[in-house]
C-alpha cells in the first residue's frame, strides 16, 4: 500500500440515545504523496466529519466508524489512543476554518507552536523557539519575534490563519488537512492564503485534503475534486474534468447556482428542496427528491460510482448530458 491515504467504504455515525446521525455513508478514495484533493459540498454534507475521521478527532464517545482507513500505513480505526496521539500533529496536521476560536486565547502564538514541536520531537525550548521563528518565516509573517509573543486576539484574521498554518506545519507533516481555511477571510486575504498553501504544499511535498464549499477556491488549489452530498462522494475526478464536464446532476446544479462572471441578466439555476435528514436517509440515491432527472429506478438502490478508481466518475444512473455547466 503506497498511498498516503487509503480509504474504503468509510462510514461515520453519531449515536445518541434518541437518534443516529449517518454523517458519512461509504466514502472511498486514495491520496498520493504530494496530491491535493478538494472535498466540495454544502453545509452538513459531511465534509468536516470525514476530515476529522482521518485523525479520529470526532467525539470518541458518540462516534462509530467502520470501513478501512489508512493514513501513512497506519490503520486509524484500530490504532490505540497512544498511537493516534503520536500521529496527530506529526505526520497528519489540521488547519481549521475559524483561526480565532481554533487557537487558545490565553496562550501566545509562540507557546502554541513550541508545545507541538516539543511534544513530538522532544527538543529543548530554545530549539523549539528557533523552529517557531523559521515557521513564521515560512508562512510569511513579518516581525516574527514580536508575533511569537502575541496572543491570537492581537493578530489580524489573515495573520491568525497563517499562524494556524505554522502550527500545523511545525512537525513537517506528510498530510495536511484543511477545513475551509479561507472561508472566514476576505477575498483579498483568501487568495494570499491559497497561494501560500499551494507553495508550501509543493515545497514540502505534502498531500493535502482541502475542504471547501466554494468551487472557485477548489479551482485554485485542487488536483482532484470530490463532490460530497449526504455523506457520500457523488462525483470525483480531476479538477478540470469536474469543473468543465460535470456528470452528476447535483454538481451541475451547484455549478449553475454558483454566481460567476458573465451570468448577469441570466436566471440562476437552483436546486429545489433541501438536503436529506441524515438521521433518516432515503434508500436510493440521496439526491433523488431534488433531482430533475430522477425516476423510480433512482430510489431502488444507492447508485455506485461508475468508472475506474481515480477516473472521472459519478454516482448517477441517468447521467444527464452536461448541459449547463
Amino acid at each position, binding site marked *: 500500500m503506497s498511498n498516503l491515504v487509503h480509504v474504503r467504504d468509510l462510514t461515520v455515525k453519531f449515536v445518541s440515545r434518541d437518534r443516529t446521525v449517518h454523517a458519512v455513508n461509504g466514502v472511498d478514495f486514495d491520496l498520493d504523496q504530494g496530491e491535493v484533493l478538494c472535498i466540495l459540498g454544502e453545509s452538513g454534507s459531511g465534509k468536516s466529519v470525514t476530515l476529522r475521521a482521518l485523525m479520529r478527532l470526532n467525539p470518541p464517545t458518540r462516534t462509530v466508524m467502520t470501513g478501512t482507513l489508512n493514513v501513512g500505513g497506519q490503520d486509524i480505526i484500530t490504532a490505540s489512543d497512544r498511537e493516534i496521539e503520536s500521529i496527530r500533529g506529526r505526520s497528519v496536521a489540521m488547519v481549521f476554518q475559524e483561526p480565532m476560536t481554533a487557537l487558545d486565547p490565553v496562550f501566545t502564538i509562540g507557546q502554541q507552536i513550541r508545545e507541538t514541536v516539543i511534544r513530538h520531537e522532544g527538543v529543548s525550548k530554545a530549539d523549539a523557539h528557533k523552529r517557531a521563528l523559521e515557521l513564521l518565516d515560512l508562512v510569511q509573517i513579518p516581525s516574527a519575534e514580536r508575533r511569537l509573543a502575541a496572543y491570537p486576539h492581537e493578530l489580524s484574521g489573515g495573520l491568525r490563519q497563517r499562524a494556524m498554518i505554522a502550527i500545523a506545519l511545525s512537525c513537517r507533516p506528510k498530510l495536511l488537512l484543511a477545513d475551509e481555511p479561507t472561508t472566514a477571510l*476576505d*477575498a483579498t486575504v483568501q*487568495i494570499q492564503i*491559497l497561494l501560500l498553501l499551494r507553495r508550501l504544499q509543493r515545497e514540502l511535498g505534502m498531500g493535502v485534503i482541502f475542504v471547501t464549499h466554494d468551487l472557485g477556491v477548489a*479551482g485554485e488549489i485542487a488536483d482532484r475534486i470530490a463532490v460530497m452530498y449526504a455523506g457520500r462522494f457523488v462525483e470525483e475526478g480531476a479538477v478540470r474534468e469536474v469543473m468543465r464536464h460535470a456528470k452528476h446532476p447535483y454538481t451541475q446544479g451547484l455549478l449553475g*447556482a454558483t454566481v460567476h462572471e458573465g451570468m448577469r441578466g441570466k436566471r*440562476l439555476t*437552483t436546486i429545489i428542496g433541501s438536503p436529506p435528514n441524515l438521521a433518516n436517509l432515503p434508500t436510493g440515491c440521496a439526491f433523488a427528491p431534488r433531482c430533475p432527472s430522477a425516476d423510480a429506478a433512482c430510489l431502488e438502490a444507492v447508485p455506485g460510482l461508475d468508472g475506474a478508481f481515480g477516473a472521472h466518475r459519478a454516482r448517477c444512473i441517468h447521467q444527464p448530458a452536461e448541459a449547463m455547466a
Partner: protein
Amino acid sequence: MTLAPIPDRGGPAQPLLLVKDLSKHFGKSGSVVRAVDGVSFAIRKGETLGIVGESGCGKSTTSRLIMGLIDPTAGEVIFDGEHVGPGGLSVAEFRRQVQMVFQDSYASLNPRLTISESIGFAPRVHGLSREATNARVRDLLAAVGLEPDQFAQRYPHELSGGQRQRVNIARALALRPRLIILDEPVSALDKSVEAQVLNLLVDLKAEFGLSYLFISHDLNVVQYISDRVLVMYLGRVAEIGPVDDLYAHPSHPYTRALLASRPSMDPDHRRTTPPLTGDPPNPVNVPSGCRFHPRCAQVMPKCSAAEPEMVKINADHQAACFLAETVPA
C-alpha cells in the same frame, strides 16, 4: 388606513436616495474609528446599487446611518428630494419607505413570534386591520416562495437559513417600501440557496417596483445583481460606476486588486501572485493622502502627500485616484 404604496414625488430623474458627505466616527478623541468618512452617492429610482469592499471598510455602518439606526457625525440623507430628519421627512415616515434585511437571518427575527406575527407586526402597528394584515402576510409569504399554509404559524428555529431569509425579505416588504437595504443578505447561505434568494430578489424588484442598496463582500454576487457599483475603502468611496463599465475597466488600483482577488474559475490559468498583501487595515489610524497608498501597487510620491479628488472617467463613472483619467467621449 390601507397602507397604499407611496406615490413617487420628484419624477424618474430625481434620485430616490441621496447621501451627502456622510460620516461616522466612533470613539473619543485619541482613538477615533473613522468608520465612514465623507461618503456621497445616489440611488436612482428602480436601480440596484451595489456596495463592495473588504470587511471593516464601513459598509454596514453606511447602511445603518442611512436607516437612522445610528446618528451620523456629519452629512445628510435626502429621500426623493426631501431631507430626512427634523424639518423634513420624519424618521417614522422614512422608515416606512426604506426597509432593511441583514446577514444573520436568525438574529433578525424574534424567536418567540410566529412567522406570520413577525411579518404582520409592522402593518398592525401602522393601523391595518387584523383581517387585512393576515391577507397581506399570506400574499407576502407566497411572494417570497413560502407556502402560507405551511409556514405562517411556524417559529424561526423551525426554518432553514434560506427560508428565514425569505421571511426577512417578506417582512421588509410588508409596508410596501420603495427602497430595501440588503446588508450581506446571502453571505451566510449555501450556494444553491444563495441562487434561490438572488432570483427571488430579482423577481420582487420587478413585481413591486423596488430599488435596492445591496451590500456584499462577494464581487460576483454584486456584479450579478447590481446596476451600478460603489467600491468602498477605509470609510471612503474609491470608485463608483455602472457595473459593466466598472468591472471591465476598473480605474482605481483597489478595484483592480479586488477584481483580481476573485478565484479564476479556471484550473489552467490560476492566480499566481496575490493582488494585495496584508489584511484590510483598521480605520483607527488612517493613512495620510490616499488611504490606499500603503497597499497600492502603483503608488507615487504624491499619493501619501495629498488626497486624490474624485475623477470623472465618463458621465457616470468616477474614481478617487491620481491615475484615473477622463476618457474623452
